[in-house]
């Protein structure tokens, strides 16, 4: 049985064991076991039949940086909701903890979601920020878009010049997660 550590959006972590049994997978969470009949469908969809009864469509998209073996970020669509999780197997988690989880540090980085113009910064380096707090305003699609912090932390640096046009994905603000302050 292989064990995975899942970090939820709220930071809570869960351990889930997986083993193959015939065409199905057996998931072990604490002392509860579930049988999963998972089928892949066109268009990145998958269908899950849980314990031969409950029926769910799902889409799993790995959102992490593939060059980073410790980045297990993944977005899962179930029903109409997208859940942002972080999934790593036990071995990798131990290794990451050893290295000192630089992953968290980058978790607070805010990039430009689209080409646009940096209108104004709402924080300065050193500021303490909380999850959801606006950090920078970018103009795109003729609209002012406020980009927010993913988690609590301290502003490390402002990377793009004020008023400059930035490419999609450009790093704008880096936030040091509280754990590392």
């Amino acid at each position: 049985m292989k064990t995975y550590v899942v970090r939820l959006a709220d930071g809570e972590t869960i351990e889930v064991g997986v083993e193959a049994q015939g065409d199905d997978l057996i998931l072990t969470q604490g002392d509860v076991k579930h049988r999963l009949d998972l089928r892949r469908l066109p268009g990145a969809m998958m269908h899950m039949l849980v314990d031969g009864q409950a029926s769910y469509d799902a889409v799993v998209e790995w959102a992490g940086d593939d060059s980073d073996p410790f980045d297990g970020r993944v977005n899962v669509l179930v029903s109409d909701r997208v859940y942002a999780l972080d999934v790593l197997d036990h071995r990798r988690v131990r290794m990451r903890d050893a290295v000192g989880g630089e992953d968290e540090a980058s978790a607070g980085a805010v990039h430009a979601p689209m080409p646009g113009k940096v209108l104004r910064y709402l924080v300065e380096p050193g500021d303490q920020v909380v999850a959801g707090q606006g950090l920078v305003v970018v103009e795109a699609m003729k609209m002012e878009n406020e980009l927010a912090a993913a988690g609590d932390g301290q502003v490390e640096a402002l990377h793009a010049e004020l008023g400059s046009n930035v490419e999609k994905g450009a790093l704008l603000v880096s936030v040091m997660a509280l754990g590392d302050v």
Partner: protein
Amino acid sequence: MSGPIQKVLVANRGEIALRVMRTCREMGLGTVAVFSEPDRTALHVRYADEAIALGGETSAESYLVIDKIIAAAQKTGADAIHPGYGFLSENPDFARQLETHGIILIGPRPEAMEAMGHKTKARAVMIAAGVPVVPGSEGPVEGPDEAVIEAESIGFPIMVKAAAGGGGKGMRRVAESSALHAAFAAAQSEARNSFGDDRVYLERFLDRPRHIEVQVLADTHGNCVHLFERECSIQRRHQKIIEEAPSAFVDEAMRKAMGAVAVQAAKAVGYVGAGTVEFLADAQRNFFFLEMNTRLQVEHPVTEWITGLDLVEWQIRVAQGEVLGFKQEDLSFEGHSVEARVYAEDPAAGFMPAPGTIEHLHVPSGPYVRDDSGVSAGSEVTPLYDPMISKLSVWGRDRATAIARLDRALAEYKVVGLTTNISFLRRAVMTEEFRSGDFDTGFVGDVIEGAAPVDDRYEHLAVWAAVADAFLRDQKLETQGAQRQAGDAGVSAWRRYALVGSGGHS
């Protein structure tokens, strides 16, 4: 179907271009699409009989270039142009140039566009016609100092608005004199950027009003009718996301009164074609003229659902000189219709547009469900244009049935590859506030504030799906080696929004 119009060029893109072409097909008319470089394989290009490249990337380089549109019409021999909404649809110069080139514009006369296009002019015309307007400044305000005097006579809070404005651009709410200078400057600069005209005026700010509009339809023979109201109070960024007809708030007396005023407003500017008169209403059912949209409205399907009419068909008939086939007394409505706009945007990040490529799309269907999509699997939603993916509208014999149906249909929607507001729309539809019909333009804020708590029912399933996928993926890697990993990297279209810190909460 006969009539002077034989071939229609649609000077637009996305769902509205398709919407118009569908009716053209049904009327036996030829269809011509125009497209910018990024839209080469867009759905509207594929749908049309003919498609002409405009070149250019941005709207300013393509869909907004009058000469290119006219050249396309001449090359294809299109004798009429439907402007859809946005772009050139309310541009009087465009209307005039079509006239000089002998091309029929499927829309009102340029004079009507001008009268209604300029907010302060429109207010003056409406006041003259005895139409109630929101208390405010006579016309544009010279400067911040004059604004303060005006504002104090009108009474705070007030709105500073772009005189040439519309679409929520160049608007600022001001609570007191001290804040007026800054707001005035901000509104001016935004107005300049959006409309090339920095004049602004003042209006009393109505606290959490309802936004209700009336559909009108007029022919060239002096006939003008209204097709009842649409409730459009549910907005974000001053843009509607859920609309319905009829309004749960409007009683028969108010309906009659608003309808009459809307027809009066249309007649005051000699309106021809389909148009919409927008009102703000307060809790006491007082209503004030806000503006008139001199074109087809995004949310016109809810009116079609309850009246059984095809508004685009009547736009075309009226444009070729036909007489309206009905009088006001012939018109009635049946049941209830609700529309939800599906956007590529991230509600958790202030409804910020979330462009990307649609990898997989499954649209809802079944009884009394209508989907007006402008995209299909493989389509790219670019930052260049409006990020609306679809308009989903339903009909039901009553409001409760329609709402249950809309929720059912929203649940059927599957969009893979980018972030959408579908989850938010379902939360909104679920609120007691919405179901009761007792809401106003403050609704979206309330939902965000958590009037509708996010539903985490499926989180454990998401965990299982992710873990199972990771397990199978790791198995594959062990067998097939790292080479496969590169392949997987390609898949992750969601990195797009994963880049946004707040994407994690979407």
